[in-house]
């Protein structure tokens, strides 16, 4: 697939498509709307004291916590999201369409509401809170809560992306593989997942990025304890009140991480 894309991009003989010219105007405005704020952010960065600002103890703690929790919740998204996408795309059971809609709810839900919903489930007086407390665990306002909040908001990104790829790929190759004697698990591992690899990678990137930027649900469900639940976005919001320079410096750090993640996975996805 990617080879085809490269060929088209580098083919000097390719004739232009019949795109209406006026589309370029809103397209340029749209592009600027995304790029300009990022450039503006760059102009406000206090470059002289930058290193000190981003290596302060609270900043380092927040960065490490953010990377750890976002990585953990991305892994959790993969473990839960791949089977969920498979079942939604290929499974046959009553209520599948309803389940598909429900899984997408966190996409449209304000994150604060998501945080309250998680509190009602895992909080001390929540639906499962008492049963969990019997086991000697308390989820709310812990690092576990951060991971749960991030997974809650990030999971739909992976599921939507992967399910779309699975539907596009269809199941004809799976039928061929089965007729060659491959059992369902072998088919999944050697045919189904490799064929949707680009969709899986982009879904994973989206989920990681969403987990890294998660703010509202984390604040509501996990609070803001330095080194325990105060991730980078929370730290930035806090610093904005007291030290705007530090907030801008950390924001740039988050932008840099996002760019690196996208660049690395984009290169990996293209064989």
């Amino acid at each position, binding site marked *: 697939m990617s080879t085809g894309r490269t060929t088209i991009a580098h083919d000097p003989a390719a004739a232009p498509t019949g795109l209406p010219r006026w589309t370029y105007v809103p397209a340029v405005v749209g592009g600027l709307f995304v790029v300009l704020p990022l450039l503006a952010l760059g102009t406000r960065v206090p470059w002289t004291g930058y290193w000190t600002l981003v290596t302060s103890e609270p900043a380092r703690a927040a960065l490490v916590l953010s990377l750890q929790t976002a990585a953990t919740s991305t892994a959790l998204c993969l473990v839960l999201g791949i089977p969920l996408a498979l079942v939604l795309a290929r499974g046959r059971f009553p209520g599948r369409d309803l389940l598909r809609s429900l899984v997408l709810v966190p996409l449209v839900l304000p994150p604060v509401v998501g945080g309250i919903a998680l509190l009602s489930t895992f909080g001390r007086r929540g639906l499962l809170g008492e049963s969990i407390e019997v086991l000697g665990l308390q989820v709310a306002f812990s690092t576990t809560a951060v991971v749960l909040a991030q997974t809650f908001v990030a999971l739909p990104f992976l599921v939507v992306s992967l399910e779309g790829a699975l539907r596009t790929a269809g199941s004809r190759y799976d039928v*061929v593989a089965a007729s060659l004697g491959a059992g369902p698990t072998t088919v999944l591992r050697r045919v189904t997942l490799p064929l949707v690899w680009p969709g899986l990678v982009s879904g994973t990137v989206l989920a990681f990025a969403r987990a890294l930027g998660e703010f509202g649900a984390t604040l509501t469900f996990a609070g803001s304890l330095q080194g325990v639940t105060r991730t980078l976005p929370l730290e930035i919001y806090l610093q904005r009140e007291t030290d705007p320079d530090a907030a801008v410096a950390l924001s740039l750090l988050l932008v840099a991480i996002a760019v690196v993640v996208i660049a690395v996975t984009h290169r990996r996805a293209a064989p």
Partner: protein
Amino acid sequence: MTFTLTATVPSRGVDVTLDVPEGRTLALLGPNGAGKSTALGLAAGTLRPHDGEITLDGRVLAGARAGRTTTWVPAHRRQVALLAQDPMLFPHLTVRDNVAFGPRAQGRSRRGAGTAADRWLDAIGLAHLAERRPAGLSGGQAQRVAIARALAAAPRLLLLDEPMAALDVDVTPALRQTLQHLLDDQTTVVATHDVLDALLLADEVAVVDGGRVVERGPTAEILSRPRSAFAASVAGLNLLSGTWTGDGVSTASGAVVHGYASHPGVAVGAPMTAVFRPAAVSLHLRDPHGSPRNTFRGTVRSVEPRGDLLRVRTDQLAADVTPQAVAELALVPGRTVIGTVKAAEVDVYPG
């Protein structure tokens, strides 16, 4: 009897009974929508019968009574390989890994599966493409790799669904020859609407129409004395018998017919038959010099309508041509014409 199938699928209007003895090839011959693919789907395990039983080597693969499935072996445990008209090679695997897929999935070691794959690639003459990706193959090459992949899985029953339909006319004779060699001892069912496939690949033909088997028997018999309307409409191929000269078939009338043959063992002088369809013949009044074609001079015996075309019979062959061509050439019985056929459209086989 190795393979038996008796099944109805009312939703598709299909009610068929088939059987294939060990090592034999049965052709399901019929028009599109006749129920051939449904029959193959039932055998492969992609469709459930409403009523009936399917067995392979005495093992029941599927059984059903009045819509209730009583026995069901999933596709991957059937030892039934299906080859469709689209080769469906796994795009993310090399040619070798595609062919090694079956042995590997059935538990062979990586090395063992790779060796088996190389042997099959050798058999189809594409060993030099082992490291390529399917995207780098031509349609004919891809279909040959798909055949090797299906056979490498060592199926007890091989199903071919219109294996030539998606290919250029120029490469189908070569692929047919490949299949003819490879299917020698392989129990096979080939679904086709092309009488050439039936003639060259199958020992027996079952003519399917309207979801039912309307005629059944040895291929030569069905095609020479067709009783069903479909068999009659597809028969009428040009069959020219003669002896092998080393690079062509020398017929009784003295003509030498060049065609596609890959029978290394055939001795000069052995009986051979050249086959081509009437639609592959074009007619001329003068000899079209310098063309790499077979030419046959003959006298028009009859002209009769055949769908949108007219079938012109000469003393040697039949040609399907447009009414315009008949008018331009003023083809009436008694007139001398020259028929030409590209060598690539002629199949040559022993017998």
